[in-house]
């Protein structure tokens, strides 16, 4: 084991390397490229015994990845944003092949407008696809989670592909100190891939991904996938224990920070949770009983663990870095359904922020805490808030004024 500085992207590549993946089909997209470039370099130098193939689209990439997994090799791939959306048909299709592999998503806002900045609209679009979904908050977690994801997806009780999410720029291009485990220790945690009977062999012809006739057969196989995904909750807990004993770090399904005696908690996923954590410390210093609850798993949804973690709090501030247009935050909607009807359920307040790489400032966390404490005291949930500062609005107004001047000049025929 050695400690070094790595970007989130490099940590993802190290995860694939330590998992000894056989095959990496890929297609470049910002901010994911460093992952596949690094694997490409290792493949050429022989440091990884892997076949890396650049295909012509993410749709092709997911098809090739799953077809290879369905032939019996361990597969890794990575994408982001529009790439994940372009692959969406195949995400849904290949989850049903029950041929597990790991796909890293480096999350980035989706068009329109076009942006490179990070948010979770891309990865949440894959929420119902059948891919399990794990969200990372630190660079170390990225490396560890890739290893955990293989063991989880390949477990005979699960056998589903797994999406590991890290935030673009905030994690992908940020260097943090990371422990890179020894290959032997990883081998003790992650056994080699057993494809079971899902594979192509001359002596064992098989038809995979076939059609069914009628809703009865269709429902049966869809229910099976759902139950397998739910089973992944128990399996995850076992794996988290095994990971801790083999590699020394603990990654529970739901991370709680100073929430045991908290009056209200921040509830969010991804790298911005580390900012929430810092805000918790400062609010605690000021004598305010605030905590953080961060699910690492979103699919399967860790329902019981979340209910336990939130059983005693009076208010939850859900901070969504996504926006279901016309509805609101996805984490908020899901948490409401999880806690509805529970005895003494907390008041749940919704905040949308951090879209397209937009920062969430410390003061905003303080404001969110104040709004949520007030709501909890009154016993009624406030209207959802779209976080936006006056200074941001002023900047957008400036852009609009420039746009107007340019347009008027063009219309008047004057050359700029």
């Amino acid at each position, binding site marked *: 084991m050695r400690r070094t500085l790595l970007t989130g992207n490099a940590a993802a590549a190290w995860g694939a390397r330590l998992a000894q993946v*056989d*095959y990496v*089909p890929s297609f470049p997209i910002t901010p994911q490229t460093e992952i596949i470039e690094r694997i490409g370099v290792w493949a050429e130098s022989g440091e990884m*015994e892997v*076949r890396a*193939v650049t*295909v*012509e*689209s993410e*749709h*092709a*990439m997911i*098809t*090739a*990845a*799953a*077809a*290879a*997994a*369905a*032939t*019996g*090799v361990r*597969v890794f791939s990575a994408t982001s944003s529009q790439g994940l959306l372009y692959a969406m*048909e*195949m995400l849904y*299709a290949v989850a049903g092949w029950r041929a597990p592999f790991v796909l890293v998503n480096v999350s980035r806002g989706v068009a329109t407008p076009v942006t490179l900045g990070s948010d979770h609209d891309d990865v949440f679009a894959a929420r119902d696809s059948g891919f399990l979904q794990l969200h990372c908050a630190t660079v170390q977690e990225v490396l560890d989670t890739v290893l955990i994801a293989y063991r989880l997806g390949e477990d005979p009780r699960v056998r589903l592909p797994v999406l590991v999410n890290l935030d673009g720029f905030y994690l992908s291009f940020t260097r943090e100190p990371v422990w890179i485990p020894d290959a032997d220790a990883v081998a003790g945690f992650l056994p080699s891939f057993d494809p079971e009977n899902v594979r*192509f*062999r*001359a*002596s064992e*012809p*098989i*038809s*995979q*991904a*076939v*059609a*069914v*006739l009628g809703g009865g*057969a269709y429902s049966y196989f869809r229910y099976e996938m759902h139950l397998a995904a739910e089973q992944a909750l128990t399996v995850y807990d076992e794996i988290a224990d095994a990971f801790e004993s083999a590699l020394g770090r603990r990654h529970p399904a739901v991370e709680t920070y100073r929430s045991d005696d908290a009056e209200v908690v921040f509830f969010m996923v991804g790298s911005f949770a580390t900012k929430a954590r810092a805000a918790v410390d400062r609010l605690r210093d000021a004598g305010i009983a605030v905590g953080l609850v961060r699910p690492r798993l979103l699919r399967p949804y860790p329902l019981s663990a979340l209910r336990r973690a939130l059983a005693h709090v009076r208010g939850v501030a859900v901070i969504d870095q996504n926006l279901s247009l016309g509805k609101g935050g996805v984490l908020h909607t899901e948490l409401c359904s999880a806690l509805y009807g529970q005895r003494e359920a907390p008041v749940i307040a919704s905040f949308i922020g951090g879209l397209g790489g937009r920062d969430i400032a410390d003061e905003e966390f303080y404001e969110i805490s104040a709004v949520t404490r007030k709501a909890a005291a009154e016993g009624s949930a406030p209207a959802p808030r779209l976080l936006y500062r006056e200074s941001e609005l002023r900047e957008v107004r400036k852009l609009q004024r420039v746009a107007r001047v340019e347009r008027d000049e063009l219309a008047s025929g004057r050359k700029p």
Partner: protein
Amino acid sequence: MNETAYRRINDLPSTHLLAGGTAMCAGCGGLQALQQIHDVLGPNTVFVNAAGCMTLLSIYPFTPFRGSWLYTAMASAPSGAQGIRDALDILIAKKRLPSDEDVSVVVVTGDGAAYGMGLSATSAAIDRGLDFLYLCYDNEGYGNTGQQSSAATPHAARTATATGSAGYPGYKKNLFDLWVANRPTYAATAIAAEPVDLARKIEKAANLRGPRLILCLAPCPTGWEYDPRETTDIGRLAVRTGVWPLKEYVDGAVVHTVVRRPRLPVEEYLSRQGRFRHLFEPARNETVITGIQARVDAYWERAGAPGEEKGA
């Protein structure tokens, strides 16, 4: 080229690997071709299917194949072939699979995917030199959904989306030349109604490595509107009228493999199919029929006499 096991119809395999009783339409020219192809390729084959008519071949818990099957999606069957081929190569190279467990990878696609949605994935597989056989059953329309016009639909054919008296206004895209322009290992047109020619082409393609196209015209009773028992006759007429030239590209040259003389007028082919009936009833549309004939004539003029090809 002279080393072939298939010289006469009696040389064709007498054991059949594709079971009957599938959900395909009676008289399906695509299934007829696939049947003959599976027999020549043998059981150590994985068919990677693009969404289309053939999707309904494998319906849980049944499959008609002696070999294997993977259903992918409409646009990405060649990418599925890439994943399987790469995975098998990896397993054999890492000695996790004995080489006699290897299977050959065959994409099965209709013209809807091959001429349109699947073109990007196909083109890229050729770029990468993927070792695969690409079998297109071309029934000249989106057959599985009721024969809407596709990029493979011939000029003037009536389809579910070209119902007027002019039929389909466009011209059939030249998929064979698109492949040939990218220098694949092998490319051939074929038809099940000429089974010896088809068997020889499969035999030749099976012994080569790299991207290989078999483009089969697939007469379609429901889409082309004729009685299912006429499938072979219609197929033969497609060849005899010169509408469907049988040719192959190998080692940089295109050669016509079957040329039936004399070439019959195209109307003998057109008039047998309901999709062209509007060219003959209620009144004969001389302009369109002459135009179709002229295009076929021009093709064969460019191609030159067999044996002295001009690279059609």
